[in-house]
């Protein structure tokens, strides 16, 4: 796991500068959030307990017998770095998807590319979504498969992924990197500090009547 440090005051979020641990590969392009967490498990009013339902329909057949899936394999128990391919997390905006993965134990996702809403939802949880070239990702997936106990180190600030004797160049989107490294990913706190400016913007919009701006109601 990363070395969490708490920033001092304005935005109470952990700094996420690096994530280390063992990897788990889930191969395939366009893995959508309906696959990550089927809708029927979203009939809940908290995110607690969602972890066990990650990739549920890929992991179990109709008789609830286990199917071949990395999330079922003993060798990946305790893994916290998920390695995926292209356009991971497309489809529904459900935050239940990264919540389920995080509660299963995932601390970072590395892949060729991510759907935007999914990446944003991960950031809101302090989970980095790190991208690298197809070749590098596939090599990392092969490595993790062959060495499920080996450590994978993601340096969010330096944008590198290290495993075995290999260090690959990775990309952490600018705003995401800044937010994670500086511990300012709690946007509620960040934006809450600008209350006055928010009201000014609201007042400048012709479609927002004064009675919709708390405090301005005449």
């Amino acid at each position, binding site marked *: 796991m990363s070395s969490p440090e708490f920033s001092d005051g304005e935005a109470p979020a952990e700094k996420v500068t690096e994530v280390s641990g063992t990897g788990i590969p889930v191969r*395939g*392009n*366009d893995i*959508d959030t*309906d*696959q990550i967490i*089927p*809708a*029927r498990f*979203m*009939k*809940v*009013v*908290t*995110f607690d307990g969602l972890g066990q339902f990650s990739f549920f*329909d890929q992991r179990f057949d109709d008789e609830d017998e286990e199917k071949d899936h990395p999330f079922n394999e003993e060798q990946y128990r305790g893994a916290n770095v998920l390695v995926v391919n*292209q*356009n991971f997390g*497309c*489809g*529904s*905006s*459900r*935050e239940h998807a*990264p*919540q389920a993965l995080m509660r299963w134990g995932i601390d970072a996702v590395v892949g060729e*590319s991510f*759907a*935007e*809403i999914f990446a*944003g*939802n991960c950031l*809101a949880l302090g989970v980095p979504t790190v991208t690298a070239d*197809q070749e590098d990702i596939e090599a990392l997936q092969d490595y993790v498969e062959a060495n499920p106990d080996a450590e994978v180190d993601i340096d969010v600030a330096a944008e590198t992924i290290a495993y075995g004797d290999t260090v690959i160049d990775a990309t952490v989107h600018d*705003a*995401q990197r*800044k*937010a994670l490294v*500086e511990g*300012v*990913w709690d*946007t*509620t706190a*960040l*934006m*809450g500090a*600008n209350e006055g*400016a*928010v009201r000014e*913007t*609201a007042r*400048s*919009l*012709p*479609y*927002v009547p004064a*009675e*919709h*701006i*708390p405090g301005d109601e005449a």
Partner: protein
Amino acid sequence: MSEGTLYDKVWDRHKVTRLPTGQDQLFVGLHLVHEVTSPQAFGMLKERGQEVAFPKRTHATVDHIVPTGNRDRPYRDEAAESMMAELEENVRGSGIEFSDPDSGNQGIVHVIGPEQGLTQPGMTIVCGDSHTSTHGAFGALAFGIGTSQIRDVLATGCVAMEKQKVRKIEVTGELGEGVTAKDVILTIIGKLGTDGGVGHVYEYAGEAIESLGMEGRMSICNMSIEGGARAGYVNPDETTYEWLRETDAFADDPEEFERLKPYWESIRTDDDAEYDDVVTIDGSAIEPTVTWGTTPGQTAGITEPIPDPDDLPEEDRDTARRAQKHMRVEPGDTMEGYDIDVAFLGSCTNARLKDLREAAAFVEGREVDDDVRAMVVPGSQRVRDAAEAEGLDEVFKEAGFDWREPGCSMCLGMNDDQLVGDEASASSSNRNFVGRQGSKDGRTVLMSPIMVAAAAVTGEVTDVREMEEVATV
């Protein structure tokens, strides 16, 4: 970098400040709330001892889990009941207006916003639902957000975002007979891919788009996210204004309409605007289009062959192979004649009055195939009432369709409306992902409402143009 587009202008008008992360803090003009993605956000707000910052810019409804049959409380499904109760509790006393089932205004969140006039040009609109892009049809900047962002909006009235690139998608020419907005957007996603729009906002323009009514524009903007674009929009014009004049917001207040119109005009994309890129598609060449696979980008015109995975770009091959195995289709075949078990006419993509009218006009005097269970789920209570006033419910029922109460229903199978086993559905919804309609072996073929109607009647995927010809001979 784009300049002078509607996106640039609406962004600038709503920008509060630049955050230390490099993201912009944007004021949210309208926050729509539903029962599935909001409870945890309200919970987080309570934990922090905060209240809803702009309750009067927030509007709630219930759509994902509501039963579309018996709606007596408590709902038979305990989980659904508890989610409904939670939403009621969260909006009670908060000042948030709630279009609940007793109000006569309940419906799919992306149907009720536009029909009540909550959705207006030049607004920023968010909702914990990826199909929020629908509202872009009015020239709003509208996008889906996650639950932590819902918390942000509830607490601050704002969302933190980075500016995207703007791609103009120009659809030229006139659409052919039997070709609808749904066929246009399926074609666009088929051409640009499910991740083609990542990092982009889509501006839809061109003759084929401008000649569409608001319902068609909504169907197109709705599925922007299926192409990877978080938002899509059409510049407001007379068609937009005609719709707005009829809504609750302006029907009794033409002065307010006139007062806001200059703002709406001002945020239209300038003639000399700059885009990050432009894609042109010949609208006159689009056929009725359906999906053959398990992503909304795996599409083919009804007379076009299903592609051989080996002929696709390398990164698409595995997905295509798996999809063809799941759907049990063969390269080289067309989708015409593909047997279906279920016909679903509903969803935030295609369950508005115009969709139901077109399907009903086709269905009238015909019968649903014996082996098909067919259902119509109107997008809202107002759509239902308007359709019933025109007798459309009777047309559907007479033909053998089930006429149900409004909600998301079988689009995502969170209530009792689900595929069973390996049933195949002809569906007017927006996603054909494996398991999407409630059964992991279920098979979904996406298409327009009239194509769903045609499939319901014949029991197989059918080129509606041929049916119409037969009918007029």
